[in-house]
């Protein structure tokens, strides 16, 4: 079973890297990019076979390590 975790900065936390990417896109002629937020995708291969249990475990991993919930939010997809 595979899990995919998306980690993004919370709304309201300024993302300097996203801003730099937005400016660079502007320099390349891509006008009209009003905002860029940069995050992370983490893929996990799991031994688990029960989707609900896997999701609960991956959420625990997010809380304990994969995301810093002071500044980041996360979503978990199980496939």
């Amino acid at each position, binding site marked *: 079973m595979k899990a995919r975790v998306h980690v993004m900065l919370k709304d309201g*936390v*300024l993302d*300097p*890297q996203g801003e*730099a990417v937005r400016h660079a896109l502007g320099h390349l002629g891509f006008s009209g990019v009003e905002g860029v937020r940069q995050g992370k995708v983490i893929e996990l291969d799991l031994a688990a076979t029960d989707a609900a249990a896997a999701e609960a475990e991956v959420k625990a991993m997010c809380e*304990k*390590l*994969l995301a*810093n919930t*002071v*500044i980041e939010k996360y979503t978990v997809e199980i496939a």
Partner: protein
Amino acid sequence: MKAAVITFPGSNCDRDLADAFEKAGAEVVRIWHKDTEIPAGTDVVGVPGGFSFGDYLRCGAIASRSPIGQAVVDFAAKGGHVIGICNGFQVLTEMGLLPGALMRNASLKFVCRPQKLAVATTNSIFTEGYAAGAEVTYPIAHHDGNYVIDAEGLKRLEGEDRVAFRYIDNPNGSTADIAGVLSENRRVLGLMPHPERVVEDRQGGTDGAALFRALSGMLAQA
């Protein structure tokens, strides 16, 4: 006074920190990230600067969950003193021992220079060696020193007089110019600037010596 200085893979200020403690009269024990206990009789734990675990995932994240990490959390919970400098500050926020987080500098550039700071409170064992409102210069060298805390957290920090140092001419975009913060019990300090790099004349300054002297003197009496 006995200080324990941790070395993680990628730490690069651990020897400087050990040296600063020794010059202030402390007995220093060097410990390794795979150790699971803080040595008996330790008065203060030093979490050094560097790039622990290559800054993988987030700065300080892996180090904060390493075997010694839990021992540091337990040591602090029992009222032990902890100082985290630069990457060590990032580690302490990741451990949850200090509020807030350190993000990429607002300029996106690595900043490396002598930095003027204001001592924002002398009400801590770390800063009582300075005069109230003193201005000091410590070196800074970091890419992720942009201190972020929400409005409520900031209000609490300021209300409880827990901002230890503030930047004069903010180099990295930190909220409210914050360079260093104290824990609720005032026994854990995290700061981005490097006091251990200015403890003797040949380093170009001695502004950091008072921090280690005060720490050493107070803890020797305790």
